[in-house]
């Protein structure tokens, strides 16, 4: 089993390198170099420009530059942000933490609410509860994230229940731990709720479908014929096979949460990686963009490998196959 996990991990790293190469190539094809972005703020003499170009290696061919970039990333240096005028790792560090916090919170909500909803809908299949569930989930699935974020923003303004953006209140850094954590949670609620709506609907509808199928399976009928109580039927017999497709979704949902968070973070002013990536795209800050793509790609790969492991833990057959 662990050999399989190892193989998947190596594959994932290969994909990640390919992804970074493709992105690097796209960014390198930009007409002009990043120096052109600084022109607006600094007036540079041609000699200085040449010196800088040589210093940053922008006079080299693309492949050489990519090789250098890769070597530098392998040593743990992510490059230098032109817009922020500081190393990318410093720019990204705090942002990554904020995005992980948001993503984890949204995942907890999505799974914590989505699974029970899916179970209830499956147990009451083809009743009004199931139909209501289907309608609600369709609405949740089709609502654009940034529109939802705007509506949430309006709600926060009208009711005044939630703070308008930011990771914490200004000046809270010196407060004791408990109010500080409560303050961050207060800021976290709205973005996490908005971000969780879409994965919640995906999880819930998939679990409902799989569970309805599992409840009709022969082995469940046999178990019912033995006279087992309904909750044993559900928890021990039907739920486990029904969880398989939902677990596969886990990997997808981790990756999509991270890239989906870009819009939500931008609208709700959550200082995370997504917001940074959007800023970097508008400011044309190549090293920051590369790091953001790399980080979200890594999250996606991590999600896929995690899903594989969970699948194997859930289903003995998956441990042999593959």
């Amino acid at each position: 089993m662990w050999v399989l996990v190892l193989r998947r991990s190596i594959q994932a790293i290969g994909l990640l390198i390919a992804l970074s190469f493709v992105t690097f190539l796209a960014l390198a094809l930009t007409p002009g170099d990043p120096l052109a972005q600084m022109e607006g703020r600094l007036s540079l003499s041609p000699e200085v420009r040449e010196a800088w170009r040589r210093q940053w290696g922008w006079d080299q061919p693309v492949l050489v530059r990519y090789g250098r970039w890769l070597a530098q990333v392998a040593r743990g240096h992510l490059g230098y942000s032109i817009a922020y005028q500081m190393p990318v790792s410093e720019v990204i560090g705090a942002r990554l933490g904020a995005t992980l916090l948001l993503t984890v919170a949204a995942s907890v909500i999505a799974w914590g609410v989505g699974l029970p909803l899916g179970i209830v809908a499956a147990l009451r299949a083809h009743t009004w509860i199931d139909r209501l569930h289907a309608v609600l989930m369709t609405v949740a699935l089709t609502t654009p994230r940034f529109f939802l974020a705007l509506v949430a923003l309006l709600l926060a303004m009208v009711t005044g229940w939630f703070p308008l953006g930011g990771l914490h209140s200004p000046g809270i850094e010196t407060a004791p731990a408990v109010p500080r954590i409560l303050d961050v949670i207060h800021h976290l609620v709205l973005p996490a709720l908005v971000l969780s709506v879409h994965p919640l609907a995906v999880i819930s509808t998939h679990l409902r479908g799989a569970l309805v199928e599992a409840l009709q399976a022969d082995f469940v009928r046999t178990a019912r014929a033995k006279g087992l109580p309904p909750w044993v039927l559900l928890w021990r017999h039907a739920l486990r096979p029904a969880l398989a497709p939902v677990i596969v979704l886990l990997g997808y949902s981790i990756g999509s949460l991270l890239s989906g968070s870009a819009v939500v973070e931008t609208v709700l002013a959550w200082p995370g990686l997504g917001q940074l990536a959007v800023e970097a795209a508008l400011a044309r800050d190549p090293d920051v963009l590369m790091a953001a793509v790399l980080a979200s790609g890594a999250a996606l790969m991590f999600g896929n490998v995690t899903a594989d492991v969970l699948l194997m833990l859930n289903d003995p057959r998956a441990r042999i196959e593959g």
Partner: protein
Amino acid sequence: MASASGFRRIWAHPRARRLLVAALGVSLLALLAGFIAPYDPRTQDREAVKMPPHRLRFRDAEGRFHLRPFFHPWRIVDRARWRYEEDRSRRYELVFFVRGEPAPLFLGVRTSWHLFGVRSAPSARRAGVFNREDRERPLRFYLLGADPLGRDVFSRLVHGARPALLIAALSLAGAFLIGFALGGLAGYYGGIGDAALMRIAELVESVPILFLLLAWRAALPLQLSVEVSLFTLVALFVLVSWAAVARITRGCVLSLKTQDFVLSALALGAGPGWILRRHLLPNALTPALIQATVMLPSFLLGEAALSFLGLGVPEPEPSWGNMLTAARDLSVLYAHPWLLAPGFAIWGLVLLFTELGEAVRAASDPRDSHSAPLM
């Protein structure tokens, strides 16, 4: 032909038919945007900055009922904060099929006819009480209010359907054609080409799409013309979505390749071109088309999100995404919530296309009859 029977099957499914008609209806509305929208979506009215929607009324102050809806114009009371109040002394009514500003329709056809417009109410006309300003600058009717530049939100909304549908349709066609051709060839010939193609498809499918779109969009100049930016969006969407179609087509071709009817055609001396064209691709057509249809909503959402972030359809050209950008400003959003209207439009269209994809899939699946479920 397999495709004809596939289409007939979809048409026979009542839900799929209804949704297909609705989608065609929306496309027709978008095509006739110049006629349905009362004004040019780019015209700025400096006297109507952030103007609220005009309130259509049927009952006047004396309680009399009017069959023809009318409204009172807004009067600016606070130019600093753009606050308006109704001017009850003046009354305008809605008229349908009127001549107004000439507007381009499509393919160079122009129309000066519009679905609706306004004129001053009959009492005012009889009394000959015309405001001088009315004659110089006819009053504009804002069904959904005006944006911070004084442009008609309704006209922009109607015109905004065009880039959305155009991008979705072109992306669908591109993803389908490329995915279908590559997937079919890879499935039939196999070998190194197949393996390489599937690795690339895997790469494309496993990347964080929005981040990649951001990075690639950033690689292009910030200011692009409308045509170039539309084409760029389509190219980006095709680039990330052909793989799903290719994988499905390849799977179909692979499983069909060893079936008896293909083997017998081979034994009769049919060449690979004939077998692909005649036996394999027609049978893979429906699943591939369905996969492409299912991706329609994500194209719509992608266009809206990128335009919203300022990386898609450029101003002043209206798109639902870039219209919502105005609502990102907290104070604007709070005081002028009608600017959220394009959000509902996106939502409705995504809902329509999602349901359409589901219905088409259900209609083409012989196991999934639309009779009542078994239990």
